[in-house]
């Protein structure tokens, strides 16, 4: 898995710097898009995955699902920060200012706030099972508002943000090379997300097992 990731990373990097022609209107700035779009996509994916595991936890009450849900949210937060920063850098380079509350910038900020609120909620509840149940419900609700923020609202208002890949006409207005490189980058980020999820989940399970063994537990006495 690591090899695939490494290979993809190298391939995408090479393509971005050597193969990609400048995009019309944006010039070489389109290179940031190859970073920004996949990362933004994964930050939305983070919500979806988190909500999926949250719903499974609510149904089955298996603590593992709760761990998976929380890990997805953690990674989603990381990718969301990356998306915000890369977007701001792009805005500065393309239009002169880091932040002007463009609808897309507003959306990504709200996404960040939602992830932050999820964490606040998890930290505030002490009892384990209640914490899991409460954050699962919140995760499901958050995921239901995300489509409004990301897909619907920014399309209704005028935005400087370049038109998204999945636009109304259903066609992809992009150079073929760019599309391939972008697809590669999206694959890379998605695979990275799932790979890191698996690592983090295993780490948390191991950490929990260690904590359980380390603490002095009162054992039953068989009579």
């Amino acid at each position, binding site marked *: 898995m690591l090899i695939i990731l490494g290979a993809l990373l190298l391939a995408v990097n090479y393509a971005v710097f050597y193969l990609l022609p400048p995009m019309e209107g944006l010039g070489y700035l389109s290179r940031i898009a190859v970073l920004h779009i996949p990362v933004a996509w994964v930050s939305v994916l983070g919500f979806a995955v988190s909500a999926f595991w949250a719903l499974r936890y609510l149904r089955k009450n298996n603590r593992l699902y709760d761990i998976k849900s929380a890990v997805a949210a953690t990674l989603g937060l990381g990718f969301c920060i990356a998306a915000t920063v890369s977007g701001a850098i792009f805005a500065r380079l393309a239009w002169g200012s880091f932040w002007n509350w463009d609808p897309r910038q507003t959306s990504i900020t709200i996404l960040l706030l939602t992830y932050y609120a999820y964490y606040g909620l998890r930290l505030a509840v002490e009892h384990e099972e*209640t914490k899991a149940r*409460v954050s699962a419900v919140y995760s499901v609700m958050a995921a239901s508002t995300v489509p409004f923020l990301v897909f619907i609202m920014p399309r*209704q208002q005028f935005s400087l943000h370049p038109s998204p890949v999945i636009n109304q006409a259903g066609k992809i207005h992009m150079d073929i090379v760019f599309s391939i490189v972008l697809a590669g980058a999206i694959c890379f980020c998605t695979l990275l997300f799932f790979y890191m999820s698996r690592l983090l989940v295993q780490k948390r399970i191991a950490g929990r097992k260690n904590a359980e063994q380390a603490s002095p537990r009162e054992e039953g006495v068989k009579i």
Partner: protein
Amino acid sequence: MHRLFLHSSSPVLLLLAKEFVSEYRNRYACSVILAFSVITVTSISISLANSALSEETESVLLWIIIFFSAMAGLGRVYSTEKDNNTLSTLRIYCCPQAIVFSKIVFNTVLLLGIACLTVLLFAAFFTLRVKDWVLFTVTIWLGVSGMAVVSTLMASLAAEARGTHALFTVINFPLLMPLLLTVTDLTTRSLQGVPADFDQVCLLIGFDLMIAAVTILVVEWL
């Protein structure tokens, strides 16, 4: 024997009656919200000292005050139950759907009251000239319903947490942002007399429906 108001075969109506009577008898939420609205509007009015507000500013202020009044008063439905140890009793005697639904209805009525009050205060202190009453009322209605439903669910989550009331506002705000952005825009249009953007009204209705669907989905785990 005196007449008993709590006479019904429907659990929802029973719990609703209980909420309204409890509120009437100690007026905890009402007074907090009333105080909040009045203080906010008067302090803004004093600070502005008669200078005019643009329609956009008025609309934004209106919704901010409604939102924060909601944050002040809507958490009560669950936080007082948790503090008084009555929530577990309810859970034993009653199904979760009835509990949540009765609280949603109560909060919607309460928030509608807040919204009307705030609009009246605005009319008194600022020049609130509504050019499109239909749009104005529909927006307030849809916005308030959505806000009340989300707030009730968040109240049930925040009640489980120890600590400050601030958590309730923090978890509510991001979820309500799409709603707030849309309703402020629609209200501005109604104040300006500009025709409504149909897409936005659809978004509002869609949001409310989506929230209702999610509520039905998660209600048993609240």
